[in-house]
Structures are given as structure tokens and as C-alpha cells.
């Protein structure tokens, strides 16, 4: 079974780490990741840019593009995509296409800061 581990934390709190503190956390995580990687059990790892960089597409009719992260609590996180786009406009277009195929709910579009492709976990 493949599992996704979704990381939640207080952004203000993580944002107030000094660069050294941040690097120390990343180094500790890398130890865990390296072990998984050696065992062929690590897929892609992404660190997202802050929610200030997020844009949300509400898949209403018509779809609505809003600044900021998806903030409602009545829907649940059901999946995610990693896509490569020239810019935010292009990413929003992709989200619109996906939304047309599956209306209802929302997509939060968040730029990826760090992306480690990982190995083949199959």
C-alpha cells in the first residue's frame, strides 16, 4: 500500500525559525528520508511555499479564483497533483480543466519550494 503523509504545522511558528533552526530540522528529516530511500520506499517529497503564495480555485459554477489558501473545514483533503507550469496563470488553467472534469469542492494551488523526486516505490 502506498501512503501519503501530509504535513501540518503552524506556519507562523515554522516561519519564525532562524535559518539555522530550519536547517537543523531539515537535516534531521533527511536522515529519516535517506533510510527510506535506501530501502526503495520513498516517493516524491515536497516542501510547499507559504500559504501567502497560495491561490484557490472554487469549483463552483462558474469557477471562482481566490487569493490565499483553502480555508474551509467542511471539505476534506482527498488527493493532490504535482504539475509543471510556466506560471500561475497556466497552473490555474490546468486546475480549471480538472475542475470541469470534476466539479464541486476546490483546488488549492500552491507553488512547491523544495521538490525531491524520490525513487520508484513500485
Amino acid at each position, binding site marked *: 500500500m502506498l501512503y501519503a503523509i501530509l504535513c501540518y504545522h*503552524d506556519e*507562523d*511558528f515554522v*516561519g*519564525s*525559525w532562524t535559518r539555522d*533552526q530550519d536547517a*537543523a*530540522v531539515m537535516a534531521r528529516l533527511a536522515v529519516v528520508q535517506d533510510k527510506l530511500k535506501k530501502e526503495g520506499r520513498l516517493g516524491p517529497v515536497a516542501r510547499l*511555499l*507559504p*500559504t*501567502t*503564495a497560495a*491561490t484557490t480555485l472554487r469549483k463552483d459554477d462558474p469557477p471562482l*479564483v*481566490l*487569493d*490565499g489558501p483553502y480555508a474551509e473545514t467542511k471539505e476534506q483533503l482527498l488527493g493532490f497533483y504535482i504539475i509543471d507550469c510556466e*506560471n*500561475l*496563470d497556466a497552473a*490555474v488553467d490546468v486546475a480549471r480543466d480538472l475542475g470541469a472534469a470534476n466539479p464541486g469542492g476546490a483546488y488549492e494551488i500552491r*507553488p512547491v*519550494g*523544495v521538490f525531491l523526486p524520490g525513487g520508484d516505490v513500485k
Partner: protein
Amino acid sequence: MTDTAWIDAALTSARPQAVGALLRYFRNLDTAEEAFQNACLRALKSWPQNGPPRDPAAWLIMVGRNVAIDEVRRTSRHEALPEDEVISDLDDAEDAIAERLDGSHYRDDILRLLFICCHPELPATQQIALALRIVSGLTVKQIARAFLVSEAAMEQRITRAKTRVSGAGVPFETPGAVERSERLAAVAAMIYLIFNEGYSASGETSEIRKPLCEEAIRLARLLLRLFQSEPEIMGLTALLLLQHARSAARFDASGELVLLDDQDRTLWNQKMIAEGLALIDKAMRHRRSGPYQIQAAIAALHARATTPEGTDWAQIDLLYGSLEILQPSPVVTLNRAVAVSKVRGAEAALQMIEPLGERLANYFHYFGVRGAFLMQLDRNEEARVAFDRAIALANTSAEAAHIRMHLDRLMRDSRPSGAKAEKK
């Protein structure tokens, strides 16, 4: 991270919201700060034992209020203070208060807190010091260090600023849309001032002053989180990130300023650049341009160029052109002329800055740039005059040293040509 480091970080991030809310309750800055301080002391005792509260800011506001109210009761009735456990036992109350802290209050609380620091009667340095003390919670000692003044002088500066602010009366009513956007603009300008205070540091002091840049970025992010659809706040945050991303490359080992063209671009912080580019990309979708967005777009073009030659100077020229319209200033024209010199040559650039001479007669950069253009046109004698003037006007030793480097190059270049002339 140790227990206390965790708590310190949580207190720092909760501070603007907590002090902002306490200020709304007590309508007095000193009382609000003191209440927050007391709440922090309780947190240091309670959190390691009971674990972190779900919403640290709500916890601090609640405890801060209770302690302050008890303080008033105690002094008026001489009653004993209740046990810590009673005051800090908030398990049930926490949910209720978290609900009551609705989004709009939270937003205006923090904006108000930032805005009172921007009082127009306060000189810029006092605005910045006050914001760093009240909003960011830096100690007087830390602020004094960043400003390179004594702790006593900084203490006095902050006290004076506080007196002036409390005398002026704090606007407590919920702001209307126009007022809110005016406050936002004033606060954005102040955040940019904080940043520049750190960014304009010389080589020797840049490490000490760097926290000012970092704090400005933190405040800009905070503001953006509160006002998510404001393209100018996106632009401001992007601008600060893109400029700060270059900080490791801006000074050489001996503390001399390194110009953009000569910087080691591998030292630029790619994480900050990525965030800055994402924000400017997001801002541009709004099609509502503004000075911060334009400046950020210019910084973005520099950040995107992997070599100086790869810089899109034509686009930078156009962007400065738009900035000249929105925010006409001889300094903007001077910056534009640098882009023009790369696109259309030094002659065109020199013509462009010629009319600025009078208004920029005491501006270091004007003579530095003018000297550089003249040098490119082989008008070495005039270039030397301009560089001499620049050195006389230099604000920091790094600036003067940089111009001296140009002068040395002039001397070096003029010698072989002189030798050639002799041979003829």
C-alpha cells in the same frame, strides 16, 4: 529544538495578535504590553507541564486579560492573587475564546497595532523602533544593537515615541474600507523602512543589522496573510524577499560592497527567490500595478538572470518607465538611466540624467552613476571629477571604497594610453 526554544517561537508568532487584541480590550499600550508579558510568564510555567495550548494566541489573550483584571482588583481591594493553576486552567474556556476571536477582529487588531507605530508625527527612526519593540517584541537591547546606538539612547527613543503615540489617541473604532487601505499603505511603507534600515548597512554591520531585514519580511508575510488579495502587499513581500535573497553575495570577505554585476550568483538564496517570484506572479494576475509590484518585478528580472549578461535590461527600462509615471522621482530616473545605458548606451543614459544634476546635487549615487557613464564614454577627466564628488558625498566607507575602485581603474586605464601617446 528544546522546550524553551519551542515556547519562544510560539510566543513570538502569537505576539502581534495577542498584543493587538489586548490593546483593543484595555485601550492602553502599556497595559496591553504588560498583560502580554504576564501571560508569557505564565506560559513559560504552564506549557512545559500541560503541553502547548491548541491556540497559543487565544490562551495568551485570555490569561493576559485575567491577570490584568485581577491586578486591578488586587490593587483596589488588597485581595490575594489567585493561584496560578486557577488562572491558567483554561481547558474549557479555550474553545469559547477561540470562537470569539473572529477573523475580522484579528485582522484589524494587528493592523491597528502596526498602524499606531506609523503615526505621521513620529520620525521614521522612531516608527521603526516602536514597531520592532511593540509588534515584533524585540528587546530594547536587540533594537539598540541593530541601530548601532546605546541601549539607553534606544530606551529613550522608544519611550518618547510611546508618549507621543498615547498622547495622539489610538483609533479604536473598526476602520472603514478607505481608512483601512490608508492604514495598509502607511504600514507597508513602514515595513519597507525597517527593511531598508537593515539593507543599507555597510559590510561591517550587515550581519548585525540583518535581523531587521528578516523581521521586515516576517511582518510583510503577516500583513499578506491578513490581506490576501492586495497585490501591493504581495509586491512588497516579493520585493523584500528578492532583495534579501542576495544578501550573502552583497559584501566580499573584507566587507566591501559587491555590485550586482559582480556578485557570485550561486550565493543567492534560491528558496527566497522562488517565494518572491511566486508572489509577483500572483500579484500580476490582478492587473492592478503599483510601485512595490514594479520594483519587485525589476528585482525578479535580476533574480532570474543567471549571468549579468542574461539580464533583460530592456524590460527593466520599461518597468522603470512605469515607475516614473506612478512615483516620479529623480532617483527612479537615475535608476532607469542605468538600464538605458545597457540597452541604448552611455550617451543616451548620460543625456537622461543631465537634467537631474540640480536636484541630486548632494546625492552620492548620482555622481557615482554619472562618473561610470562618463568613464564608458572615455571622458576620463570629467569622470574623475564626478567620482571625486561621489567620494565626498559617500554615506558609508563601503560606498567610498567602491568609488575609489573606479578611480583606481581610471588611473590604471589612463596610464597605458598615456604611454602610447608618448611613443607617437
